[in-house]
Each structure stands twice: as C-alpha cells, then as structure tokens.
C-alpha cells in the first residue's frame, strides 16, 4: 500500500482495515499521534487528511491511500515550528502533554478553516478534544495566541 505522509511516500504491507493510527504508530514509527480512546471521541489521534482533521483511530488506512496525510511530526518545516506550535510553546499550557499532538493538530485545522475564530468558535471546534489534566483555559489562551501569529 502507498501512503503520502508529511510529504513523504511510504510503501507498506498492511491490511486496508488496519486503522490509520496503528499504521502510523506501529508501521511507520510516527508515534506523535496518540491513542486515547480508540472510539473517535478524545481527539488525541487527530491528523489532517488533505487539510481536514480526522480521527486516525477510527479511519481505516485503506481509505486514505491517495490522500495527503499530515501528522504532528510534519508541522515543523526545516527546523521551524508551525506558528500554532510556537504559540503553544510560549503559552506553556500542558501538564502531562499527552493530549498535546491532538490539541495542536485540531487547532491547526481550525485556523486553516477560520483564521480568526471567536472564543465560542474555538470552544465549538475543540469540544471533541479531551485534556484529562483539564488545562482547558490555558489551551484556549494558546489558541488565541496562535491567531495572532
């Protein structure tokens, strides 16, 4: 199977119904996307497929063969952080940071779609991402800071 991930071509042998998350983590060693629930409700595994946020834990890899997959590892360009990453680094919202990749990816997707979301729009868009350490207020601050970048 052929996959385009973070601008690279991969040719791997997996069955098409393996989840994208398992494929990324176990076959491509891209472990930045996390497993939090496996049921599509926590957002820890969020990746972008042609720019749209998708829950990789419930996405069969067979369905994304000819699409552009971006994971957290692919945001940095030539050693330069994505503006959203920069904002998160500055605001320093995380405790255990296990939710971090999913939060950053979902925020990138939100800002791609809507470059200046209101607080309410941020909450709506991020509602399906869980931070179990409950750092939500600081996460909102980080996203607001991302807007300015």
């Amino acid at each position, binding site marked *: 199977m052929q996959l385009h991930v973070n601008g690279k071509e991969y040719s791997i042998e997996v069955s098409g119904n393996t989840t994208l998350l398992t494929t990324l983590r176990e076959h491509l060693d891209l*472990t930045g996307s996390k497993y939090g629930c496996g049921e599509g409700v926590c957002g820890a595994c969020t990746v972008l497929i042609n720019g749209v946020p998708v829950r990789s834990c419930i996405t069969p890899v067979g369905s994304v063969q000819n699409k552009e997959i971006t994971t957290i590892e692919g945001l940095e360009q030539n050693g330069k952080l994505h503006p959203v990453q920069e904002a998160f680094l500055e605001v320093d919202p995380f405790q255990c940071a296990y939710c971090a990749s999913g939060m950053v990816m979902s925020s990138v997707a939100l800002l791609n779609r809507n470059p200046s979301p209101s607080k309410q729009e941020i909450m709506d868009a991020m*509602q399906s991402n869980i931070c179990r350490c409950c750092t939500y207020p600081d996460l909102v601050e980080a996203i607001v800071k991302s807007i300015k970048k």
Partner: protein
Amino acid sequence: MEKEHELFETGLTRRRFFHLMGSGVAVVLTASDLFALTIFNAGDKENNIYADDEIAAWIHINPNGIITVYTGKVEVGQNIRTSLSQVVAEELRVSLNTIEMIMGDTSLTPYDRGTYGSLTTPNMSPQLRKAAASLRETLIEMAAAFWKTSTSSLKARDGKVIHSNGKSITYSELTKGKKILKPVNDKVTLTSPDQWKVAGQSIPKINGRDFITGKHMYTSDLKVPGMLYGKIMRAPSYGATLISADTSKAKSIAGITVVEEKDFIGVIGPDSQTAETALWEINAQWKTTPQPSNNTIFSYLKENAQAARSESNFGSVEKIFNESKDVLTQTFFIDYIAHVPLEPRAALAQWEGNNLTVWTGTQRPFAVQEQLEQLFGIPKNNIRVIMPDTGSGYGGKHTGDAALEAARLAKAAGKPVKVVWTREEEFKWAYFRPAGVIEVKSAVNNEGIITAWEFHNYNSGPAGLRIPYEVENQKIEFHPVESPLRQGSYRALAGVANVFARECQINDLANLRKIDPVTFRLKNLKDDRLKNVLEATVQAFGWSKVKPKDRGYGIACAYEKGGYIATAVEVEVSAGEVKIVSIVAAFECGKIINPRHLKSQVVGCLLQGLGGAMFEAIEFKDGKIINPSMANYRVPRFKDVPAIDIVLLDRPDIASTGAGEAPIVTIAPAIRQAIFDATNKKLNQLPLVPNGLKV
C-alpha cells in the same frame, strides 16, 4: 547499564560511586542526614558506606560543569521535572539548561516509595534545595582552598566562583579530577525566596518543545528491535473464574503466539491489531458469581462494613444531641469513578538472559520492581524499571499491571513485548476511586456554634475525616469495606468524599440557623490560613453581590495535603438544567515555586473535580462495567469550563507543599450549595446531576 546496576548492589561506597559516575563533586542526600554525617566524619575510608535505602537523591557535577540530579520521583504531568530543576538551579547559581534530571529509574536513581500524596514539593524539593546549596558551599570552599583565601570574599554566580577582587573560576575547572562525595550540610545557608531569580518564576515546561512536536516518547510510543505486541484475555465480569479456553483458532493466525499459564492467557502478534483480532478468536468458558450492581452498592457497603476505626472521639456527642434543639442528620452517597488517564497503562518488557528491563508509566517504579521480583523470583538487581514521563496518573497508576503482563509475555516469547491497555481495559480493570456512604449528625447552638459532630464513612477511606472547625464533642469513624470493585487511590484520596459530606453539612447547618454560610464558617474556624483563603475567595467572588434570577451561589473550604483551598461557585438553573457560570478559588500552599504551573495545577484539579461533582460515575451491573468507554463515561470538556478566577496566596515564610490534590476537594460541595441556593434542592449524592445535568 551494568555499571549503574552495580551502584545499588550492596550500598554505596565513595570509591564505587566515582568509579561509576566518573569524577566530579557530589552531594548525597540521605533519609537520615544525621547518620550520613556520622559516617563521613569517621574518615574517608572504603567502609564509608550507604545502604541503598538510605539514599534519597544526589546531585553530581562533572568536570564539564554538567549538573545531574538523581531522584526516584517521577513526572506524570505535575511538572516537577521543571520545579525541582528550578530550586537546584537557584541554589547552584546556574542556568536551567545545565541541569539534567534523572528520574524514576530503578537502576539510576535512589529508591523512592512513589510519587503521590503531594509529597514531592514538601519533601523532595526542600531536600534538593539543601543539597544544591551544600554543593555550592563545597565549590566555594574548593575555590577558597585553591586561591588560599577565605570563603567570605567569594560568591557563586553563573556557574562560577567569583572572587571580590574580580577573578573567577568555573565549576568545571574546580571539579576537574576531583572525587568528592559529601553529605548535605543541614545548616547550609539557603537563598531567601525574596532573592530568587529562577525559582519562584513561571519557567515553561522543561523539554516543552518535544511535547508539541510529537517527539517525546511515552511508554506507549517505545519500540525496541524485534518487539512484538501483546494483549491479555480478560474475564467477562468481576469475580469470574476461568473454566476452560479453546485457543486453537487464535493460534492458527499467522504471526500469533498464544501464552497460556493457568488462568493467564495472552496473545502476542506483529502489531496490536492482529493481536487484538486473535484475542477475539479465543473461546473461553467462565464461571461467574453473584456480584453487586449500582442500585445495591450503597446498602452493600453498609452491610459489609468491618470494625470501625476511630479518627476522633472526645466529649459526648450523644449527650449534646439529646440536649439540643437543632440537630441535623444526613446521609451522603459517593459513586465509584475512574481516573481515565489519557495515556492508558502501558509497558514494554525486555529480557536479556536473567535480566529484565521494563519501561512503564507508573507512579511507583520501585514498587513495580518489587512486584516483578515476586512474580519471577529473580533478584531485584536483575530488574530495571524505567518510567518515561507519563500521560498522567491522578493517583491511578500506583500498580504495575501492564508491567507484569508485558514481562510474562516477553519471557514466554523470548522477545521484547509491549502491552498497551485499551481504553475499555482501562475502564474495566484499572482501579476506581472508592464508592462510599457517609452518615453525618451534628448539633448547632443558638449562637451558631457547632456543638457536636458525628461522622461515619463507609469505604471511601480515612483521608479528610478530621474537621477543621472547632467542635467540642466529636465522634468520627471510618468503616472499611471489602470493595466489590477494584479500588485504590485517587487525587486527594477520600478527601473528595469526606470534604463533600462535611462541607454540605456545614452549609446546611448554616441554613438551619439562617446564618450566612461564610459568617457561619468564620464563627467556627480558628485556623488563620484557612480563614485567609476563605476571605480571599469571598472577596474575589463578591459574595454579597445581588443574585440574578435562577442563579445560586455556593461556597466550601478545606485543608488537605498541605494545601488550603476555598471555592465559590455561581450556577444557573434554567429548565431544570444546571450550568456552572463561574468558579472562584483561593489557594495557598506556602511559598510559590512556579506561579504558572501552580495555577495550572489548581485549575486542572478544580476542573477534574467538576467532572466527579457533576457527572462522572461508573455504572455496573452484576459485576460488569456497563459504561467502559469515553463516549459513555463523561469527562469535562472545553464547554464544561466556566469563567475561572484563581487567587494564589504566596507565603514566603512557609515551606512549599504540593498542589496536585487539595484544590479538588471543595468544588463539589460548593456546586451543591449553589444548586441548593438556586432551587432549594439538596443533592446528597456524587455525582450531583448525572442525567444530562438535570436537577
């Protein structure tokens, strides 16, 4: 790693220490520094030895000026890697990036009982601070000897010792070729907090960049050459025992190995999904036994209570109850809840001959090492447990379940095996915050003084039983129960349950006497630190402000695990649905080391408490968990977060304590009181509004 293994084999001698660590200067912190001084004063002989359980931590500075701190504490999101580095950097007068923290590795770090109970900041932090100051003092003494001058003309700054005449010498020049091992000087001069430059600041999370780029490797991300993925067969319900299992179909799947050791059955495969598929193909027969359900749990807890343990018993509560007009008797019920750490339990185990290495996310790596020692009957020195910074714990990762499973499978397979629990396994087979029944009876006199207090907790635990209010007649007991579901520690332990019942009762007593709940508390409290947080909360909240329609205000306060917390809440109840409008909380835990991370802990703790207060509950029937998924077990999300105002009270005159627990205890009773204020309904069970926030 053989080298480090040796370090703790039979204790630590000076010669071995430097043989293993390389040269340099180190300060060792022991469990009993008195003992350390005695042995060091006995002279610098080979028999100056530390038994391995006496060492608590050490700081080593090598000839390159790199400072390494070794502690058995672990990072589960409390950001102690950052706060501990801050105090060390402060006392050593170096920048943070010259410090490396080696944490929670049984072969590299000294023994530690575990990271829990908010003990790192009150215990480890001041000790490391002293150790770092002692190291600074030693370096200054070395420079004084070098220049043949007195220490009084010397100062440490920016990794150097500086002479008042302008010359300076770097730490690395000083430590070159030296092998000096010293105990902590208990009388060392510490840097006063008003001089702090690094400590006391909001320093961002150490290695923060690794977390937002996906580089940090949690246990579940690790991979070693030849590694396979393991899955464990689970019982269908609590109390079920295995009769038989047909594994032939699973075995026939390409790449799958089935491990069968009595009632332990696991499968190993080339990836987790294949292993999972194989697991489904096992056909097992189980014998089940009658088990309780949600609707019978509270009577079960009362009926199965063991002998009571007295927490407090003085005066005569019976006499006062008989004489009093205003006596209030209530019962409170607390459901089981789950920790739901976002990273589930995970472990990677690798055997090399008789040596076992296990990476696992646990709050107690040394306890896991002991569990492995027992299971395999091999010496502890053959077992290394490493704890990578982990996807949180909240008191829920004290055990080594996944570590034991991975090690068993790896042994059978002769290959490294990683086991990562699924969310469902985490919900079903991790342990829960205990359920509980709490009976409270109390009397209040005409002046609004509480005169008698009787309090019985069934099953939650003894933490938080004592009351901060001055009451002359008390009878407080904890009644342990053999819990039908697996239970264990949780943030603040039973503090959440006991403070809920107590603060609800306090609010209701105030209401009974028609006294404002803040005034009522101040009347019955003597503890100034508690009064201070209460008053700070009241002021920030504007307690006496006019209440809009359908709104209610609630308040609660407590002292737990070294922290003082008061919380005020405003709710709106419209069409029978509760909405939290705002939360104001004041918190004080002594001197503040990192304001931003402290605030983050307080907010996180409050919001996690909001989940348990409002909607989190484990549902179970006949020993089966019936909501073992995040879709069916609600945890707080972005939109559950109201306006939050945190007031941090800084007390430079008081040593810092931890903040990961206390703030969780007061949110539930404050919300409950606010709902009562808005609706006149007394909700006496946690969670308060599990059915779609309906009152």
